[in-house]
């Protein structure tokens, strides 16, 4: 799932500064699941913005809505007329939704979210990055634990020396997290597959990652044009 955060309200208010009539459009997919951009958040954010603007003495008119998936034109299309009746759209989708709407409509599409990462639900209210979408998976060798996403240095031959005595990583944004390589080592032990990492992993071909430029996937047989 794509995990996103709502931008700070101050930043959103600043973005909306020039407008008096705005559509707040949520997305009921990933960002709803990660509680950043579903219908509930649309309602909350709209109420907050209306309140703030009322306090500033510059009321704003907000229409609220949410679509099933903002990354598909077909879901957005029913909103075409509504979108055009507004000065701007504040999209509560991931960056994909903002791009998608921008491609289609000549109205400023503003991002309400910061799109963060591909994540798992660690427990309710906590999402963790576990896949970096590098395009070249080695999870079968590392016990299903991705060193690219879960090691701060993307090491392929870790762990580095910065492992704390309790096995957590010295780079600890948002609290201690286990060193990916300690996890890999322990997991492979359980699976009796330690030999997987006794040999040297080759230097990674990053061309499959976004470092190789914007990516596209094509399924020839599914193309409709002849």
């Amino acid at each position, binding site marked *: 799932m794509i995990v996103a955060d709502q931008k700070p309200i101050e930043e959103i208010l600043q973005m909306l500064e020039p407008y008096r009539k705005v559509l707040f459009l949520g997305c009921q997919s990933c960002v*709803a699941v990660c509680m950043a951009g579903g219908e509930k958040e649309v309602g909350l954010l709209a109420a907050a913005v209306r309140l703030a603007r009322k306090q500033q003495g510059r009321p704003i008119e907000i229409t609220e809505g949410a679509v099933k998936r903002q990354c598909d034109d077909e879901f957005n299309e029913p909103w075409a007329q509504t979108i055009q009746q507004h000065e701007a759209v504040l999209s509560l989708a991931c960056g994909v939704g903002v791009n998608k709407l921008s491609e289609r409509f000549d109205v400023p599409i503003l991002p309400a979210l910061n799109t963060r990462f591909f994540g798992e639900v660690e427990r309710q209210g906590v999402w963790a990055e576990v896949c970096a979408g590098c395009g070249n998976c080695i999870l079968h060798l590392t016990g299903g634990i991705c060193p690219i996403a879960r090691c701060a240095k993307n090491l392929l031959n870790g762990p580095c020396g910065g492992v704390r005595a309790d096995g957590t990583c010295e780079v600890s944004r948002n609290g201690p997290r286990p060193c990916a390589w300690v996890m890999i080592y322990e997991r492979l032990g359980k699976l009796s597959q330690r030999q997987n990492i006794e040999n040297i992993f080759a230097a990674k071909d990053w061309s499959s990652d976004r470092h190789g430029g914007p990516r596209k996937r094509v399924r020839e047989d599914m193309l409709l044009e002849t």
Partner: protein
Amino acid sequence: MSEIKHGSVAVVGGGIGGIQAALDLADSGFYVYLIEEGPAIGGRMAQLDKTFPTNDCAMCMLSPKLVEVGRHPNVQIITLASVESLEGRPGNFQMTIRQRPRYVDITRCIACGRCIASCVYQDTKFPSEFEVGLGKRKPVYIPFPQAVPLAAVVDPQTCIFFKSGRCPQNCLKACERGALDFTQTEKLFMLEVGAVIVAPGFDPYDARRVGEYGFGRYANVLTGPQFERLLSASGPTSGKVLRPSDGKAPKKIAFIQCVGSRDLRHQRYCSAVCCMYTTKEAIVAKEHDHQIEPTIFYIDLRAYGKGFENLVKRARAEHGVRYIRSMVSQVTEIPETKNLLIRYRDESGSLQEEEFDLVVLAVGMGPSAKGQELARRLGIELNEHGFAKTSAFNPVMSTREGVFVTGAFTGPKDIPETVVQASAAAAAVEALLAPVRGTRTHAKDYPEELVPDGTPRIGVFVCHCGSNIAGVVDVKSVAEYAKTLPGVVHAENVLYTCSQDNLKHMKEVIREKRLNRVVVASCTPRNLAALFQDTIREAGLNKFLFEMVNIREQCSWVHSDQPEQATEKAKRLVRMGVAKARELKPLSVQSVRVSPAALVLGGGLSGMIAALTLGDSGFETHLVERSAELGSDLESADVQGLKAKLLDAVRVHPKLRVHTNTTVREISGFVGNFSSVLRSPQGEERIQHGVVIVATEAYEHKPSGYLYGEDARVLTQRALEKALTPQASPGLFTVPPAAARCTVQAEPAEDEAHAPRAQGRGEGQLGKTIVMIQCVGRTERRPYCSRICCAEALKNALTLLEQDPDRQIYVLYREMISYGFFEDLYRRARDGGVVFIRYDEQSPPVVCKENDQLLVTVRDAHLRQELVIKPDLVVLSPGVVPDPYNEELSRLLKVPLDSHGFFVEAHIKLRPVDFASHGIFLCGGSHAPGTVPELIAKAQAAAGRAAIVLSRGQLEAGGIIASVDPEKCTACLTCLRECPFGAVFINEQGLAEIEAVKCQGCGICAADCPAKAIQLGQFEDAQELAMLEELFRPEQVALKALTPSPLPRRGEGERGRG
């Protein structure tokens, strides 16, 4: 049996025990007469501020029960009534009742208080029974604000009209409802009942009789029950702890324990609850006022129940409560300050004097005087202490067949034990009267529901409540205003909306004006909403198309000094109510069939009792036991008779199916409809059942150290018990249930090695000098009191002495937990020469060996010196631990375990044998350690609670529950993770769905659903937001269209704008 005639039951006593028994019976198909001496039900619990060990608010727990029993169609509450006589036989009793006049017609009284205000006595003058004399009342009064029945009462003892005959009777004139009636006279009438449950409770010991503490003479000496009222927010001081003498806040408060208890001059037995209620009062006092320094003087600190130890720890550590182990010899008052001087010996034995601002006496539980009279009239026997006589093996059976006893009438008890016994007594009655179940109860018929059309047609009824509302609020203008609101097609003001004539009128208006929503603006919905809902249902409307606006308790009564403001507020509240009503939707209630069978897990004492009770009540019951035989926990010789009887009864019972060598592999479903797979060596079998009872037991812990297992002269109390030929009569004492299983199954070799050798020595060969060590291995990991070990040690010590009076027996203990009547054993043991040596938790006794001589070294906490004993035998009390199988059951049933591995009940006070998950009940030692009678009562209670579900045949599901809009659900699992009741599941479409039967209607899921896919019936967002929008809407702003549009919904957007 032709004799079983009446499907009705008399419950005598309207305290928490009587209420619980009445509700259980009424819910399972019996008609109940709830007979109460006083003017209102509620009993002692209503007077409490908080309850231990959780310090929950007593009234918050009790009040919903009061309302429930008060409104129950199959319960008739008869107040101011006493039993005159009881004739007949079980199943066919004739009970004569004498009812004193109330001088108030409760069908007319609306508890407005005008009669009280107008009484010729300007000031409250007479001591209030409810306030235990601390507060005052008038001759006409309402017993307490939450009383049921909620009506005034006239006390002829103090009413001047009755005393002198000369009174202007202002009250009669003041009552707008004509409810007062001084012509009422005493009535005698007869009830036909199949059985009787007697629950008259206890009398607090009269502290005046313990003269040395000066109660009644010194103003600042109070009793525990009085102090409880001081702490209560609704008490005489509004919850402020103030001294009676000068109204000042006391700083140093002394609590004196065992006032009247454990005292040959007074009550010999221990009152069982005072240590804990005092601890609670000390904590709550401290919470009210941090300046307070509480000191508790005690003899033994008896924190033996579930969660008790923890409360005491918190009292010491977090609240700084000072505990002093000392008997206070005297309290004297310092005349100038009215402070109190307490003289006591401290633990080093030196005499101390300390001054306190307030003294609270922990008075014990005495047998109820009225209960004793009642016993005489009912023809049941009392025991030597004046409590009801019961059999150890049927703790709720009196000496007269068909008459059951419960609660503190059978001995000192706390609330959960009382509730357990109440449910147990109800279960016993159900079993007795099973053939006539449902013959006296009635269900109401309603017309078919009209299907409302889309446009709201709202009727608004604004209540005067006599002058209660109309005296402050301009009711007429509120009704006029209501007419202007969108959707309202009828509005009127009514003198009493709840009166029978108005209810009839309401139904007519609904039909004539084709109303499809009704708003009543009157008093609190907590009392009367159900009445109005019932009324509109009688008129063919769905009962959820109703909204109640509280303009009495939350308007006229609190703003009586600002009538104009109150009127404006009433308008706003009505406007909100109407706004919500416009959005209301009919909600459906479906019936779910109940599989009329039970699954009982655990074939020990508790499991057998529960299964037999259910079987006797007519329900097919599967009794599942992991091991090869039932009752293997019943090992002690004194319960062999019981065991044989139970095994026989189980074997021949036509309703029971016994599955030994069987485990449960899977349990699915919900209350009323469980489906389980049982696995045995014969294969797997799937069974359908409506309820589950978890009845696993607890084991004697296997001790380590103390040379146990190394020297055959060191054994456990259980092993000793086996080695002794029991002399005592059954019922006097108890054994730890299932304890044997540990020794027999877990460590057979070792135990056999002990027992035969001990036995080999036989009587008299156990040695002359015997040391018993209590609380063996009670550590941080097992910090709870096992409750039963002290009594067991005392019993064995007495048996040893009976065999050979020359024996020297030492009992090394931390606290002597001989609660209730076990105190007799303690006293007899002391009289018999048993030496009791108390040791501190920090310095436990040490057992070692020197040249084959056992040596026990102990530091006597009282003498503060080390003693060395050379015993022939060392007996250990290692406590009990819950069945390790509980962990698996906990996972299978999704029911919680506490940190020690015991199951956690739904509510420690009021639902002690229920799990929070509906349809699953618990009993047995794995719930909490207990004596045989305690476990039997718990097993009966669990069976009784389970029988309520089974007896219904159908369960109602729906109404105010949450539901998921599958169009919007993104299956994020938030609801599934949050639901406290496990009501959410992911359906075959991969979307969240809510099991209607399990949903309790809290709305947590609806509030957190990120896709806004969940709504809670009657509290939908559209309804709540409509109220908010209307609340402060300035009049000039145009009214919204009749059907306000909520958030543009995704579906609409997609289809509508496409």
